[in-house]
């Protein structure tokens, strides 16, 4: 929490200021499947001198039922999330462009005819940031001091790329990782076929899109695919494992935290 202290005007170039803090929305998938991604986010913020608050009442933003069309199920989850973060202050940062898209844009859609909740959703939306967007655009950080020995390629997840218009930010951060060679992923903007409940509703279609993505990954010759989304990550990694491929998929936070 912010503490009010006088800022000393020091004669040198060194000064003290209250430590900025962010609210971490870790997302349900990172929470349940990839806690190390959440820890990587925390460690990067620590390194940058930014405190991280994690409110334990957070669960799921409601994206899965919302996207499936089950809005009666999505609404209570959105309301819960709004209530949880209304008790906090500061920017809300999450290692997922699709959850950010949900909270920034789709909450407004969900409550568009609800005069009680719409203003609350709008207030929340203004505080929501995707992790790489926050680093680059909000903090002006383009180099996290990470080192990675090897070749990397980046897949821009659809909700991050087209929903949130975030692409330059993760690519800039990756370009500044020492030791890493970044190669292009062919047809990089093509969807990987995850799409939340879609991959369960239409497994045959999902599989076709995944096949294309994996084949493009092979063409890139990169052993490692970097993503900003745990959903697409689970989907592609699961496909690679089923096909007994050697490539691995990592969340960008883990790359940016690596030393």
């Amino acid at each position, binding site marked *: 929490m912010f*503490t009010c*202290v006088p800022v000393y005007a020091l004669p040198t*170039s*060194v*000064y*003290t*200021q*209250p*430590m*900025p803090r962010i609210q971490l929305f*870790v997302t349900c998938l*990172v*929470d*349940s499947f990839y*806690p190390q991604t*959440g*820890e990587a986010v*925390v460690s990067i913020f*620590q390194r940058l*001198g930014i405190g*991280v*608050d*994690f409110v*334990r009442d*957070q*669960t*799921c933003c409601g994206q899965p*039922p*919302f*996207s*499936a*069309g*089950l*809005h009666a*199920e*999505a609404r209570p989850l959105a309301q*819960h999330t709004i209530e949880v973060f209304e008790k906090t202050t500061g920017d809300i940062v999450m290692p997922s462009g699709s959850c950010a898209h949900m909270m920034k844009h789709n909450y407004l*859609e969900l409550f568009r005819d609800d005069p009680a909740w719409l203003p609350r959703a709008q207030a929340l939306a203004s505080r929501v940031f995707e992790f790489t967007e926050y680093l680059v655009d909000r*903090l*002006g*950080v383009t180099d996290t001091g990470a080192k990675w020995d090897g070749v990397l390629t980046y897949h821009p997840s*659809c909700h991050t790329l*087209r929903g949130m218009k975030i692409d330059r930010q993760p690519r800039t951060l990756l370009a500044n990782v020492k030791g890493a060679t970044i190669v292009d992923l062919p047809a990089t903007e093509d*969807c990987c076929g*995850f*799409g939340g*409940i*879609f*991959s*369960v*509703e*239409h497994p*045959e*279609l999902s*599989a076709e*899109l995944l096949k294309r993505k994996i084949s493009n990954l092979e063409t890139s010759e990169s052993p490692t695919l970097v993503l900003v989304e745990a959903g697409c990550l*689970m989907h592609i990694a*699961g*496909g690679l*494992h089923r096909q007994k491929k050697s490539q691995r998929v990592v969340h960008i936070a883990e790359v940016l935290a690596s030393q």
Partner: protein
Amino acid sequence: MSSNQFRKRIRTSLANAHLQKALDLNAERRVTRRINALETLPDWKERRQRAHAVRAEVIENLDSYLDQFTAKAQANGVIVHRAKDAAEAVKIVLKIAKDSPRRREGRQENQKETFAALGALRGEKVLVAKSKSMVTEEINLNHALEKENIRVVETDLGEFIVQLRGEKPSHIITPALHLRKQDVGEIFKEKLDVEYTEDIPALTNIARKVLREVFLTADVGITGANFAIAEEGAICLVTNEGNGRMVTTLPPIHIALIGMERIVRNLDDLALMLSLLPRSATGQKLSVYTQIVHSPLPNQQRHFIILDNGRSRLRNSPLKESLLCIRCGACMNACPIFREIGGHAYNSIYPGPIGSVISAGLFGSEFVPLAQASTLCGACKDACPVDIDLPKLLVRVRAGQSQVSSLKSSNPHGLTLFSSLTLRMYSRIARHPRLFALSQKFAALGAFLIAPFSQWIRLPAFTGWGYSKDLPRFANKSFRERFRKEDTPSHVTLSASEGSLLQQSETLRSPEALPQSDTSKIERFAKELTAVHGHVHHAENATQSIIQFLQSRNINHIHLEPNVLDEDALTKADIAFSREPDPAIRVGVTKAKCGVADTGSVLEADGEGKSLHASLLPEVHLVVLHTSQIYPSLEDAIHLVKNTKSAVFITGPSATGDIESAHTIGVHGPSDVHVFLVDD
């Protein structure tokens, strides 16, 4: 169509190797062409926003624009009808067709042609020649007309092919997208009794010959309309092959079926739309023929039928934004799902992303499952020239918000029971943080019991997830269990150089300024026309240059528009000319009303209705254009269509991409276009 029927159709598409190849080809070619074409328009993103606003305003005030359009069209001498649904529209068309004067004499004269299949065209039946129109597909017009013993022939190459095969179009722009040239060769051999060929120009030429007779003898021509211009009472038709021009020009009756949302306010808005539509649809700066049809030609009857058929209901529903659509098909070409399954799998005349929205909105809740076949990746929204938020609308359909689908329907969300139950259970748990945390522990434990020694779980295929991929193990300890409020100091000492942590505003790159062209309008015109396979001649004297051109090709008889050339000089040079169409004449000569530099187009307008023939029927079209009449862009030139009965911007020779997206020149209109530039 139930979820299961849809899934079955999806599997059929996936298993069809030929279809898969055709779809890949379409996606690759069409997407590249669209992007390249839009890049020639440096402000296209800004135009797209303007186009959205213009369309939204029209849909908002649709009733008054429709009234304006109707009044103006009636004043132009057009008979205007309103149809509230498919049945009404069909009834109106039937009545017009049955009352039509027949052109049987013409048909008998043309019996020299020997295509076996055409036997059925002749005789006592009313013959209707159609150019491609999705609205007529929507109301199933062909079927209704055939039932009343009226012969209908589709004249767009792609539609002609699917009609011969007894199929529906699989794409709104390229109806035969699902077929290979071999398929076309086979159906032509079977139905038209010609030698098998898979040479695309040869196939195109067969269609040209067969359909030419249809144009010349049809009693009624039926078209759709790309736009209806409220202020003018005119419609705009955008085509490439020339069949649209034939059908609106040659038969004594022309009927245009117009979806009621096709309205644009005025010619300026039309020019804006035309800068986006062909680029998005086919990657062309302008389609070969951009017609603006105001009034009937002499001895012609023109009818406009304005069709509602669910559009008013759509307009009052949360899917209203879908009425902004200008039917370019770009969302289909960009959609990764359409690329896998093609148009027929959707079982609706409107497939792909926009189809998955409007089919549910127009035709009913049985089409809701279509909207579940999307990853919501947003490629459709990015491709849309009027920036329709398709992912948002797809979610609204899934949420049961298409007004015709009620939540009481057995499957209001188009989901399988399995997905629906899983999501509901998950959502109930996630409402309660403690229950959520507890479930994580159970899931982790369960995963450990199922696969104690692996980081992966292999789920059975019926779960969907297990179909093509494995599931990672739940973490033994979730993030919430691992997180400890870290012991970071509440104050931090930073050096000034690290002050860069402060907010850094992103400076927006200004859109690149238009390239300062050093070429004049004339050079630009010549360059653009050459790029679309037209030819440019610089002439000191139009008559002399054209005489030289004709003599070099041993041509001594032309179809000539009045007041274009020095006719005494022609006679001296032994070149005969006539004013009337004649199948024996290979060259037509006209004068353009104007040229358009940035598309290489020339404008032909009716005069007495003759220049439209001279520029359309012969194989070679020679155009005289005064250089002072070249305008920089369509926006500058479009006002010249005012006070014409029918006008057309011609951009190069007639062409098609209907077989395997291969650009083929010379369909129904001229295959050779020469512009003779004359300084004033």
